[in-house]
């Protein structure tokens, strides 16, 4: 028999089985992915994967530190770079983990959402036959009540109630699952908010020196560094211009800053120019961009008179090095000087630059390496003069805050003296040219940003929090009451005693559907309330689970 049956089957089944296997594999892997265990492992992986992001310097946080790391570890750094260790949070592996996690999340939410909607629409189920099998059980005799009255009391306590004849079924705590779903869904909304921000957002950093001639307008070219999302074009940047009028900073005697405030003139398209002030915790919010005050410093104003007597004056922002006294470093380059008036030709070997420190409050005596206070008590520059080829024509973009050291090492740029200059002092160099320290101007560093995902982020975070509370503190539970009118003689369980005349016998059962140590108390209260606080016919709360292995509050004691 088996032979007869088996023979024709294999050729027919073989082609059918193959797609089935693929499908089964797919279904199984989906099941695997959406299982809680996988989600837990992915969560854990996500946490582990984030660690290198705090241990190694990150480009998005501090690009200079990454460069420094390359200098310090020339062997290791390129290898790390190849696996994305300096951009952990944008790396393939980090993204893979969270995308898998979110896929798992969606796979988890959808069926639960369906079940929950179904549960919300179905009525609490009919009472089990033997209520005394439930974790909570009580019987009261001699209670003057009926099913409707019990149901009313339960409704008053915001239970969902169904009356079936003499039986009352009630359920409460749907909020737990609702909260749970809200929480998980809002996680996805948070991710979408982040994605929106990175696709459609942009930001740039700018150092803005005080003065009308230094006005900054919001175009791509004016930023020292800018990053536009893939969906943003340079032409999309909203047009506005800022001029720094004023910068106030106050410091404590210890040198610790007390407050900063910048006053700017704002010009926006089609609007009258206006003055605004902003500070560290209150950014300047302009329609499609926010302007944040990140830092501040001083730009010494230097006047150079070259060997032919021609004068140039400029301000050079010196960068602070994180030192609380605002000791700053920088370079003042004069590439277009020493142009022979006779020939009108620029000699690129006669370019001049001054590199060194600016000290807002220089000490009275040498060494002049560190300022004593962040305000300008005794401003001085300590400079080293260089003459030669600055290397600016080579086409390699150099920093305006540093000399091109290659030019110094290959001898094209030579040191020609050093000096400390107080404000107003002049310094005559070996070739008769003169440098004068004229004064300083304040500057501020700004971050200008537009993040279209931020509203969604904020909203979904709020929902997340609400959902989380519902999920953690909600408790789903069911109770049933069976009210047997006196004299009817059909008590649900014959073991539960006989009804006394003129009143009803109430039998109650309760089932916590989630971990809920206080359920016994709530159940006892309910039973008491339903039986009108009458004399208890029997002790309520014969809890079976309370002493089970899971343990409850009572079990612990």
């Amino acid at each position, binding site marked *: 028999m088996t032979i007869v049956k088996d023979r024709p089957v294999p050729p027919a089944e073989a082609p059918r089985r193959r797609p089935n296997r693929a499908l089964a594999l797919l279904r199984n892997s989906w099941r695997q992915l959406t299982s809680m265990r996988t989600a837990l492992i992915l*969560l854990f992986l996500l*946490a582990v994967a984030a660690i290198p992001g705090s241990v190694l310097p990150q480009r998005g946080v501090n690009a200079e530190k990454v460069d420094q790391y390359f200098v310090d570890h020339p062997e290791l750094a390129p290898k790390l770079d190849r696996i994305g260790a300096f951009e952990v949070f944008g790396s393939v592996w980090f993204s893979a983990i969270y995308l898998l996690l979110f896929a798992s999340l969606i796979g988890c939410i959808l069926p639960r959402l369906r079940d929950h909607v179904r549960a919300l629409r179905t009525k609490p189920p009919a009472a089990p036959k033997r209520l005394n099998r439930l974790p909570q059980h009580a019987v009261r005799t001699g209670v003057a009540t009926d099913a409707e009255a019990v149901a009313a009391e339960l409704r008053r306590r915001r239970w969902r109630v169904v009356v079936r004849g003499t039986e009352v079924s009630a359920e409460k705590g749907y909020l737990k699952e609702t909260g749970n779903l809200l929480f998980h869904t809002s996680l996805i909304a948070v991710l979408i908010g982040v994605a929106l921000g990175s696709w459609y957002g942009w930001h740039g950093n700018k150092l803005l020196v005080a003065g009308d001639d230094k006005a900054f307008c919001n175009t791509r070219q004016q930023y020292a560094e800018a990053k536009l999302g893939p969906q943003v074009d340079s032409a999309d940047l909203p047009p506005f211009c800022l001029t720094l009028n004023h910068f106030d900073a106050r410091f404590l005697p210890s040198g610790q800053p007390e407050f900063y405030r910048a006053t700017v003139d704002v010009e926006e398209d089609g609007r009258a120019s206006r003055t605004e002030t902003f500070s560290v915790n209150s950014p300047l919010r302009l329609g499609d961009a926010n302007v944040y005050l990140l830092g501040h410093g001083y730009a010494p104003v230097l006047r150079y008179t070259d060997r032919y007597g021609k004068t140039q004056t400029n301000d050079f922002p010196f960068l602070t090095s994180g030192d609380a006294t605002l000791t700053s470093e920088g370079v003042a380059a004069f590439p277009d000087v020493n142009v022979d008036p006779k020939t009108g030709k620029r000699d690129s070997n006669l370019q001049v630059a001054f590199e060194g420190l600016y000290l807002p409050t220089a000490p009275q005596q040498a060494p002049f390496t560190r300022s004593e206070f962040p305000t300008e008590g005794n401003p001085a520059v300590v400079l080293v003069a260089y003459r030669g080829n600055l290397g600016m024509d080579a086409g390699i973009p150099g920093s305006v805050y540093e000399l091109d050291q290659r030019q110094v090492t290959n001898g094209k740029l030579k040191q020609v003296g050093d000096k400390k200059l107080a404000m107003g002092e002049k310094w005559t160099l070996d070739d008769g040219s003169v440098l004068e320290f004229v004064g300083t101007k304040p500057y501020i560093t700004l971050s200008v940003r537009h993040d279209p995902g931020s509203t969604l982020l904020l909203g979904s975070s709020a929902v997340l929090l609400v959902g989380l509370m519902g999920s953690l503190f909600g408790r789903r539970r069911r109770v049933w009451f069976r009210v047997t009118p006196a004299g009817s003689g059909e008590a649900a369980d014959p073991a539960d005693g006989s009804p006394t005349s003129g009143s009803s016998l109430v039998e109650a059962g309760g089932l916590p559907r989630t971990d809920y140590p206080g359920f016994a108390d709530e159940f006892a209260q309910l039973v008491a309330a339903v039986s009108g606080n009458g004399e208890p016919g029997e002790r309520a709360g014969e809890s079976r689970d309370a002493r089970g*292995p899971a343990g409850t509050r009572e079990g612990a*004691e």
Partner: protein
Amino acid sequence: MSALSDQLVTFAILAYLVAMICHAVEYALGNARAVAPPARELVGAGVGGAGGPVDAPAAPVAPPARVGRSAERARLAGLVAVWITVLAAALHLAATVTRGIAADRMPWGNMYEFVLTVSFIGTAAWLGVLWKRPTLRRLGLFLTLVMVLLLAFAELKLFVEVVPLMPALRSYWFIVHVSTISFSSGIFLLGAVPAIAFLIRNGYEQGKRGFPYTLAKRLPAAAGLERLTFTLHAFAFPVFTFAVIAGAIWAEAAWGRPWGWDPKETWAFISWVVYAGYLHARATPSVRRNVATWLAILGFLTMLMNLFGVNFFFTGLHSYAGVN
């Protein structure tokens, strides 16, 4: 005022130390009891921890008079320990408040003050728990030990003079963010105590008699410890979530981006993910409770890493700790 605060901290440390010794005495006296067969001992420890009249039937094997006296003494030591903890908490609170008055702001401006506040919240929450569940008293040994270590570390390593806030911290978000972070950290800190106790006790109940497990002889039953661990974490987690969100809102105003993977943000993220993992693992029946509890302890380690590790080893935007 600032000097007063410093003195109060020292007194608080001393008081915690005395409380710890009293707890240890209670422990020792409890252990001096007759050696009962394991099954008996199990029941005795689970119930007898109450320290109340239930103590008596716990060890019927030993001569009743001797046991009664030593149990009574243990109970007394335990009660004294609790009252000294209350005193220590009062000193601790006074130290924190006077520090705030001296600085004329909330006492959360640097790591020293932050540790002072977090640990106070831990103690206060502990006393709250103890009020409702006196049977857990023996956990006080661990708690006071943690307090002594934390406060001594703060006083020796983190101490800075009172200074006003950096401009970046002058925002009402400072109060919202740091108070909720401190609060949730305090509860997580407290939550780690029953978590560790549970792991030891659980091993003990499963018959392990190696080194850490024997310590658990006098601890309350494992199931209760586990539940307390969960309750504390379930309470602290939403608060911590809120604090991180508040931090993000503040970061948007102060630094221009809600989230930038600054080391402190990264570690907050890690802690959040680990604690979320704990809550999920605990809700999953197939994951054993001791595995889940290990996750809670891991979460606490990441919080410690954030508090101490990040402030010492990395520089980020969160450089307000006042340690160099």
